[in-house]
Every structure is written in C-alpha cells, then in structure tokens.
C-alpha cells in the first residue's frame, strides 16, 4: 500500500488531517445514531428525539419489525456474499476487479425466470414437484452462469493477461455494459416476473415468524459456502487455485496448468453467482436487465469489507453489508431525524465501503493476497 511508503516523520499533511476528521465524523455518526436509537427505544418522547423529529415523538421499533429487518438483512447479505466469492476469487488469482461479475448473476436470474415460467406452464412450479423443479432450475442457472463466466474470460480477459492493471478493469466495464444491453435487446426491456412461489414457502412460519423464502436463501447460501470451502481447501484443484493466487510463475513450474486453473476460478465464481441469481429470483420474484449492476457493486463492497481474497471474509462481509443496509436506515439515520430513509439504502452501502477503506483498508478479516505487489 502506498501509505506504507510514506517517509516516517514527514509530518501530517492537510489530507491526513481531513481524513482523520472524516473518520471521526463517520464513526461519530454511527455512535450518536446508535445511542439515539437506544434512547428512542427506551423513551420515544425523549428530548433528543423531539429535537430531531420537529417536536414530535419518535416511532419505537417493535421486536417483530426488528426481527424482520435482521432476517431481510441476512438473506440479502447471503446473496451478496455468494456473489462476493466470485469477485474475491478472481481478484485473488488475477488481481483485477471483474466488474462484469454482477452481470453473470443477472444472466442466472434471467435464466431462472425463463426456466421457472416454462416449468410453471407445464404445471411443475407448485405442490410436490416444486422442489425438484427448483433444483433443476438451480442446476441450469448454475450451468448457464458458469458458461457465461468462462466465455467472458476466454473472449475478454485472457488476451489481456499481463497488460497494465487498469486495462482489464476497463474491459470488464465494457463487458458489463455489453451483456446488460444485449439482454435488453434479446429479451425486451421490461421487468420479468417469476411465477408465484407455493404458499407453504411464502407464508410466515410460526417459528420465529420467518418467511420460508428467506430461510431457504440463508440455508442454500450456507450449503454453497460450505461446498466451496471444501473445494478450495480440500481438493487438488482448490490447492492449485491457491497456488496460482500465490504466484503464477512458480505454480506453473510446479506443473499446474495456470490457464485451466484460471478458467476453473471463473467457473466456480460464476456458479456461485448463478446460485445467488436464482435465489434472488425466488426472493424478489422479478428480474430486469439492470438487476446485476447494484448487487454486483455491493458484492464487491462485501468482498472489500471482508478482506479481498479471503473466502470466509467474503461471506461475512456480505452478511455484514446486508444487515447494515437493512438496519442502518432505521437504526442509525431515522433516530437522527433523516426523512425517507429507505431511499438511502444504497448510499449506506457505499458509505460503508468508504468507511472500511478509510479505517481498515485490509477489510475486517484481513486480505489474503499473494506476495506479488498489489499496491
């Protein structure tokens, strides 16, 4: 990192002072917001709440509401985590941000829409055949997503290996743009709705009052994560991936096929994004060509929050980002008297990214990058 290269004792510049101020401001905002929230929960009519809400008492958050927010945050975050794995792995191996990874996710969600509608027309999307139908859809989505990621690597990124860092990043912006607009032209610009899920999945459980879909998302994400962990840490291919991330040249000297390993990395990342895509479809039941963009950026944020290159970190980062995004508007901003907080969700996510990079640039769980100079 460039910070490390600064001469010691060179004195603090105005930029440093400004950054310190910014850090203090952001952290202070969080602390004050939290305190205000707690006070508001204890006494909605406290003077601070009256001051921030133009003399009226604040609304207390009920336990049910709070629980709902947490579950929404967790399920949302689980999907961010799944997408973030792809960013993290590609970044670990090739050292560049695959901006178009969000589009892989979107392509999977689109495939899911097509599959689900076809299966629904044939009468499989309900009752007892629902679970096999969903499993089949997941399989197809994962395959399509994997294929997209692999083709992307072959066409756009392989020829650029070894070029200056920003070149593949700019290319990936082009790829993202291209896929988005190709989908708009091929399938039409409107939002596509999934068929409705069977009642037993959508209704609120008596147990903890949780929605079935959200639980499904969390469970599937956890299983995929465990599978990926096993793949990366326990199989030979996974070992090869880690070796390539560490040092490509030495890995190839050890007899590892670097090209194939990189393709595998893209494929596995794509598969994870594919699972996230179909889960997204089941949860929100609507997909549009621009669906991939914001979750993609946020998943990258999640990867940074957890520490790029660190797979467990990516998942943890996703969950923290999802929860922060769901909770922060009502828990931090609302008590401070900000109006229309739900519109600020995306802004919260980006602010979190900036905050993490300002306070702990290596992410919450530390980066696991190779010894190559990545600064």
């Amino acid at each position, binding site marked *: 990192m460039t910070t490390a290269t600064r001469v010691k004792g060179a004195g603090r510049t105005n930029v440093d002072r400004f950054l310190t101020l910014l850090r203090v401001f952001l952290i202070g905002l969080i602390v004050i917001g939290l305190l205000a929230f707690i006070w508001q929960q204890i006494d909605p009519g406290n003077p601070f709440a009256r001051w921030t809400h133009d003399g009226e008492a604040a609304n207390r958050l009920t336990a049910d509401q709070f629980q709902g927010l947490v579950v929404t945050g967790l399920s949302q975050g689980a999907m961010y985590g799944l997408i973030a794995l792809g960013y993290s792995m590609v970044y670990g191996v090739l050292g560049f941000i695959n901006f178009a990874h969000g589009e892989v996710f979107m392509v999977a969600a689109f495939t899911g829409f097509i599959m689900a509608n076809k299966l629904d027309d044939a009468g499989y999307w309900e009752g007892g055949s629902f679970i096999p139908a969903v499993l089949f859809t997941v399989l197809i989505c994962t395959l399509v997503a994997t294929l997209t990621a692999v083709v992307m690597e072959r066409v756009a990124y392989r020829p650029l290996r070894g070029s200056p860092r*920003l070149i593949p990043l700019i290319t990936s912006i082009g*790829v993202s743009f291209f896929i988005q607009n190709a989908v708009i032209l091929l*399938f039409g610009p409107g939002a596509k709705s999934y068929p409705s899920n069977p009642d037993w999945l959508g209704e609120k459980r008596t147990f903890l009052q949780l929605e079935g879909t959200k639980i499904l998302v969390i469970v599937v994400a956890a299983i995929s994560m465990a599978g990926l962990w096993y793949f990366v840490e326990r199989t030979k291919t996974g070992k090869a991936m880690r070796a390539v991330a560490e040092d490509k040249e030495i890995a190839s000297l050890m007899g590892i096929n670097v090209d194939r390993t990189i393709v595998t990395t893209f494929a596995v990342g794509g598969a994870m994004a594919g699972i996230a895509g179909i889960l997204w479809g089941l949860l929100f039941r609507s997909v549009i060509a621009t669906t991939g963009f914001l979750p993609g950026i946020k998943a990258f944020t999640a990867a940074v929050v957890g520490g790029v290159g660190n797979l467990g970190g990516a998942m943890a980062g996703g969950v923290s980002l999802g929860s922060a995004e769901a909770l922060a508007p009502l828990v931090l901003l609302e008590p401070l008297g900000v109006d229309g907080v739900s519109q600020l969700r995306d802004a919260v996510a980006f602010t979190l*990214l900036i905050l993490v990079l300002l306070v702990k640039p290596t992410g919450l769980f530390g980066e696991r990058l190779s010894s190559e100079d990545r600064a």
Partner: protein
Amino acid sequence: MTLATETTGTKASNEVVRGAFDLDWRDLIRTGAILAAGLVFLSLTGMPEGLDSRVLIDPFLSLGYVSLFWLPLIVGWSVANEKVLEGMAATRKSARDVVAGGVVGAVGGAGLSLLIALISTFDIRDPLVNWNESTQAFLSFQQGTSFGIVACIALCAGLGAFGASLHLMPRKVRRAVVSALLAVVAVAIFESFLVDVADPLSFLYSKTGGLIPLWAVMVGVAALAFTLLGGGDRIGKARSNYQTLTGPAKAKQDTILIVLSVLALIIIPMITGKITQELLANVGIFLLLALGLNIVVGLAGILDLGYVAFFAVGGYTTAVLTSPNRGPDWPEWFPTMPWWGAFLVTLLMAGLVGLFIGAPVIRMRGDYLAIVTLGFGEIIRILFLSDWLNGYFNGAQGITNIPPADFGLFEVKGTDPRSVFYLVLVFAAISIYVSWRLERSRLGRAWMAVREDESVAEAMGINTVNVKLMAFVVGAVLASFAGSVFSAKVGSIFPTSFLILVSIIILVIVIVGGMGNIVGIIVGSVVLVGILGGPKQPGLLAEFSEYKLLIYGALLIWMMLQRPEGLVPNARRSRELHQDEFLQDAWLKGKVDDADENGNGAENGDVAPGLAGGAS
C-alpha cells in the same frame, strides 16, 4: 541494423505458394461457427430488422442489411489476413485465401439459414422478443424461407470471399475499392446531415429517402477515381509532412490549422439547421466532460468512475443559484443571481467537491479507487433524489425554470442551440488551452510520472498526494463547466440526467479517442456523441438510439483488446501500453517495422525509432 537488412532481403524469396484447398479446415470451421454465432446474435437483438426501414440506396439496400452483413466481409478479410513473422515463410496470397474466406462466410451464413428454418419450426418467442416472422422475413429478403436459406449462405460466402479477395488486389486498387464502398455508405448514411448542411445536395437522394442508384454509382466512381489518381496518397503525404515538422515551421502550421478550424466551427452553425446545431451543442458538452476526464484518467492515470458527480454538482449548483423554482427550504438570504455569477460560484463549488471526494480516495490503489469513486457518484445522485434533501433539490421533480444565461447582447438558451454551441465553443477553447498548457507544465509531467509508476514518481520527489488531488480538482472544475452550460441549455435539471451511464459513456469517449491526447478526445466525442449519440441525446444516426449502448459496450471491449491507446494515440501512452511488444519486436527484428500492413504503422512510426535505439 544488419539483421534488419538481411531479413527484408530474404522476405521475398521466403514466399510459399500453396494449393487452393491446402487449408486448415478445422480452424476455418471454428471461425465460421463464431461468425455464425455473431450473425445469429445480431439478428436476434433486432438491430438489423429495426434498421431495415432506413433505406440507403433507394430500392436495393437498407441500413439493416449493412448492419448485419458487414460481419462476413470483415471476417473474410481477417481470415485471409496472415501475420507474417520475421524469418518465417510467408504464404503468397492466392486463390487459397478466397476459398478460405468463402468457406468461413458459408459456415456463417449457414447459421443464419438455420435460424430462418428454426423460427418457423419452434416458437420460443416468449423469452426472445425478436424470434418472430418479421425477423424471418427480413433474413430471407422478403422472398420466402426457402429462398432465404439458400440466399443467406450464398451471400455470406460471397461476402467472405470478397473480403478475402481484397488481399489479392494490388494495394492501390484495394484502397480505391474500399474507399469507394465507404464513400457510398457514408454519403447514404449521413443523408439528413448532408442535406441539412447543404440543401442543394438533396438531388442525390430519392423522395422516400436513400441514394438514387445512379448517383450511388457516381459517388462510388468519384471516390474510386479520386483514390486511383493519388488523392489519398497526397493527403497521406501532407499528413506525414506535417507530422515530421518541428520548430517554428510546425508552430506556423499549427496556427494556420487552429485558425481555420475555429473559423469553420464559427461558420458551420450559421449555415446549418437546428438539428445540426443541437447536435454540435451536445457534442460540445460531452467534449467538455471528456476533456476533464482526460486529465484525471488520461494524464494522471486515476480511473474515476464517478465523474458524473462533478457534472451533477455543476448542474445543480447553477440551477439552485439561478432558478426561482429551487426547493423551498433554502434560507431567505440565499441569493439568486444571473447565470455568469452562478457559474463562478459553481467553479468554486466543484473545486471543493473535487477536494472532498478526492482526499479520501487518493491513497487507495487503482481498482479500489474506481469502485469508490463510482460509489461517490451514486451517493451524490441518491442525495439529489432523496426525500431527505427534497426541500433543497426537489427530489425526482428536479429543478425547473432555470433562466437562460443572459450576456446582455445575447442569451444562451435551449431553444436556440446555436447560442449554446457558441458558449460551449468558448469553454471548449478554454478547456483545450488549459489541458494543453497543463500537459506541458511541471504539474502535467508530474501527472504522467505518477501514471507510469507512482513509487518511482514519489522517489523522484513528487508529492503524489497533492498532484493526484490537483488532477481531481482540475477535472471537477472542467466538468462543472459542462454542468453549468447543461443546466442553462436544458432549463431544468433532474437526478436521472446523472446516472452512472454518463460516467461510463464519457470514459468510452476518452478511451476510444485516445487517452491523454486532446485531438483524440475531440475525435472521440465527435465520432461517438456526434454520430451515435449521448446517453439521452440522439446523434446523427438517430436510428441507432436503441442499440447505441450495445455498440458502446462492444466498442469499449474491442478497443481495449485491439487498440488500448485509442484512435488517435498519445505517443508516450501507447509506448507504455505496448512496452512488452516493442521490446520483443526490437529484440526480434533489430528495428520496428514501420511499414506495418495493418495500417497502424503511421501512428506508431514516431514512437518506434527511440525505442529501437534504446533496445539495441
């Protein structure tokens, strides 16, 4: 150097003649399959069919067919285009190449034929919107499916073979044929523009649109004759003469060129219609933005993906300071001022925002910085849109009733695009002058040093933090020019004008034009915004408006893969990008071959000698 003369000496004798069918069939089939996939994809996007209504040559040819069948032509050309390595045997161009081009084209055409056949067999119109009879009818030239199936294969094979056979022609003939084809297509495509600029030219076109066939042939013959008589060579010679000029002679030439182009730019809007004026004004606004981003990305090497934030800040500051319709929550004392006063405040504001956004991101590494700036861009747009600041910026309703910029003698307003253009011209001149001076200043050289290697720059005593921060501020101020003009032009301002899309389109302009090269930026914005159109503004080819974003994406990928230095490259920048290749070539050849057949030799020519000297 001795090595070089040896190799060029042996080059001719190394040519091998092969039989017409001595081909790498597997490779050809694979290329053909890729071509087929490309053709089917293009057909299914609906672009060719959508463009079919635009006639180029009155009854025969529509833009739709051109937009689809250029592909086999180019692929046919590139199949026969062989990279000759130094010291390796070269193949003499022969009937073999034509066969190769034809085979690839036929395989590609077979893909289209398959599509035609499948459309009537299967119905998957549900997800694929263009899987319908009208696509089928378009592909089979409205003559029925069986005709279409045969015709597609035959046409693609023919075009592939023609593309390949271009290699067989003598250089002079080839250039003449290509320029004749391009001239006809260009004259046909730019019909509305040409008629708008010079009304008498309308005799070329038929009443329903499109060139009259006779005149199409005449245009082609004229271009052919012009090139054959050496017109192209003369232009090329004049250009290379200009490029080799140095010292006072060059300064004189430069002055003449600048004066001429400024005069042309002042005169053109006077003689053209409103459409062209509007177009020029849009090109100008994007040129301003691109010039600013060029400083950040092109000179300092900071990939700022949230550049639209500064555009938005410029637009909103001007709007808030001039419009009576700004939000109700502004305090009583908050002033309303004429446009020029607001403009000065806007510059200050943009500089401050540049500092504010720049400071936290400046120490991040390149790719983190890209995402964080993107985040800032979104945060700023979300804030303008939010209910929270609704009292100040009116949220989604935006700020309307922004008065025109009043300069006493004349007003600049959206209904009079010519005035907007002149205002933009003044700002563009200022921006170009500033960029040009900065590039040659101490600061500019520091930026380039930081771009090439930050650690080394720091070791050389450059304060990298301050230098990068300056790039942000200068870029922000230049973008606020555009924002200020934009709000005066449109008269109302909404958060939807400042999507990330805008940032990316500005980036494409800078990259396609040529990072770090002012002429490149001008070319980029004229070609992209002028011809294809901006994010919301239609360009010359208004027909493309639905498809332009796809084209932007494809163009960005293609440029990065094939020509990362842009259309008009900056010598130093292209040296950075191709360093490895140059070093390798220099090692292989002893010198860089500037008679490169691919045509990029001329631009690289000024780079090569220094490098070859350095390497040997």
